[in-house]
């Protein structure tokens, strides 16, 4: 790892650096600047006021929305972690042929390459009042009238989150598991550990980096989501990003920007906490 001052190196990273500068750094700076602007119903006025933040932080709606969003994030995190860990564990330790491992892994990842909006829509014929779930349950005699909470509720929001984002847990955890030296497991068993003890005392701690990476993905996506909430709750639930999108549609750009800054700070704090567990550069 010698420090080089080779011009070729700089030439090679310039395109990447420029994209991040123009489309990541400058836009975020813009958001921060605009969040201090004043606005009327038709225009934004460059000035320096704190009113946008005051209005945002003093409104009980903001706090309720944050609470709701954090709740979604926590529930989704717990479910995707439990499901993702179990799936990865099965793939890494119970599927013996590496061909099968690859095939099953691929089966899990393929839906990731298809449209999220379409995957949300595809729950409608399933969960609706006359949907497959209700029809089946009625026919089986388990219920006597259609369940209303299946679609356009917090239930369907979380269901879709799990459907869309469990993959983000499976991949990094599976990756961590494949790096575990199998001799450690033999040693644990030779030392008299049960399968469960091996899982909790050997595998789980060694998977921490994978779990952290997966958690960062899932939590940041859910914290910043509004499409799923809007589509799957049918307008009944709110999220921070949805609040922002609403301000945008009312052309209240500075208000939306202030909201964005607060959201960014919250998300970065959560990520910083999770990054303590993992050094991403070492994981590559």
């Amino acid at each position, binding site marked *: 790892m010698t420090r080089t001052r080779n011009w070729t190196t700089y030439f090679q990273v310039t395109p*990447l650096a420029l994209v991040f500068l123009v489309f990541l750094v400058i836009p975020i700076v813009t958001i921060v600047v605009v969040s201090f602007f004043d606005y009327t119903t038709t225009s934004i006025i460059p000035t320096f006021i704190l009113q946008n933040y005051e209005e945002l932080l003093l409104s009980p709606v903001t706090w309720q929305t944050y609470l709701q969003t954090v709740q979604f994030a926590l529930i989704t995190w717990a479910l995707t972690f439990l499901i993702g860990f179990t799936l990865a564990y099965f793939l890494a330790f119970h599927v013996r042929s590496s061909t099968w491992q690859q095939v099953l892994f691929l089966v899990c990842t393929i839906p990731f390459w298809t*449209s*999220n909006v379409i995957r949300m829509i595809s729950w409608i014929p399933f969960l609706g009042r006359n949907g497959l779930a209700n029809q089946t349950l009625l026919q089986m005699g388990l219920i006597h009238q259609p369940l209303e909470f299946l679609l356009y509720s917090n239930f369907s929001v979380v269901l879709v989150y799990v*459907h869309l984002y469990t993959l983000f847990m499976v991949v990094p955890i599976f990756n961590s598991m494949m790096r575990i030296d199998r001799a450690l497991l033999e040693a644990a068993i030779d030392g008299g550990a049960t399968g469960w003890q091996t899982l909790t005392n050997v595998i789980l701690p060694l998977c921490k980096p994978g779990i952290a990476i997966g958690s*960062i993905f899932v939590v940041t996506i859910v914290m910043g989501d509004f499409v799923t909430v809007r*589509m799957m709750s049918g307008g009944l639930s709110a999220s921070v990003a949805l609040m922002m999108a609403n301000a945008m549609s009312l052309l209240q750009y500075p208000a939306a920007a202030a909201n964005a800054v607060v959201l960014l700070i919250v998300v970065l704090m959560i990520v910083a906490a999770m990054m303590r567990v993992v050094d991403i550069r070492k994981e590559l």
Partner: protein
Amino acid sequence: MRHGKRGPAFWLLAAFFALFVLFLYGPTLTILVLSFQGPQGQLTFPMTGVSLHWFYNLFETQLVGDIAGALKRSLVLGVVVMVVTMVFSFSAGLAFRSRFRGSSILFYLAIASLIVPSILISLGIGLLFRVLDLDPAWYSSAFGAHLTWTLPFGLLIMLAVFNRFDRRYEEAARDLGATPWQTIRHVVIPIVLPSLIGVGLFGFTLSYDEFARSLYTSGTFNTLPLEIYGMTTNITTPVLYALGSVTTGVSFLVIAVALVSFTIVRRRRERHGSDAGKAA
């Protein structure tokens, strides 16, 4: 653990896995079936017949929106984002093999680009264009917004690949008199080609399916996900499912092409040993 008969734990986990796969694919299959709904059919079962009615309907002039135009824009944008992502990530991957001034800042910028919520990037670029009095468009602002999502993935994949890259191949090429460009063209690229295909797949599909980052950046003309989203609020016929089937079909086609080229590269490599240096 890896020896002997399958225990009950295996079957339990296998059943769990199977259920998950059903959960993953079930809804998509449902709308695939429902997109062949009869002309009188509704958004849910029962089917009132089997027809291609809704597919025809899809490409007829719509009351709202412009599906064909949106599809074309998304495909063009996806391909351009794919190519740019492959080139920029590969080039940056080469650079990151030596530690240079600013390398860790750039690395953390890439991570930041992944974890900053998409909607914020969208909002920021939208605001920036507004402040600069530029019109956002799918080929300028949305293009940049998509790159902030595909490049970090591309970069991380290339970093992982080059961490495992045996530099002796390059040294050997150099010893044999290859120029730096020849080394890259005939040695490095063939070795990392499968991963590069992966980066391309990421680039195309992430862009093709991107919603939040396109929202405030695509300007007057919608990309496909925006168009679909608009339709969900206006249209309550199975034409929605036909559209879903078509877009999912395009995604699957792209995945299939990527997998096939991946397999061909690997087969060729198995036949020749490493094909480094064998490319004409």
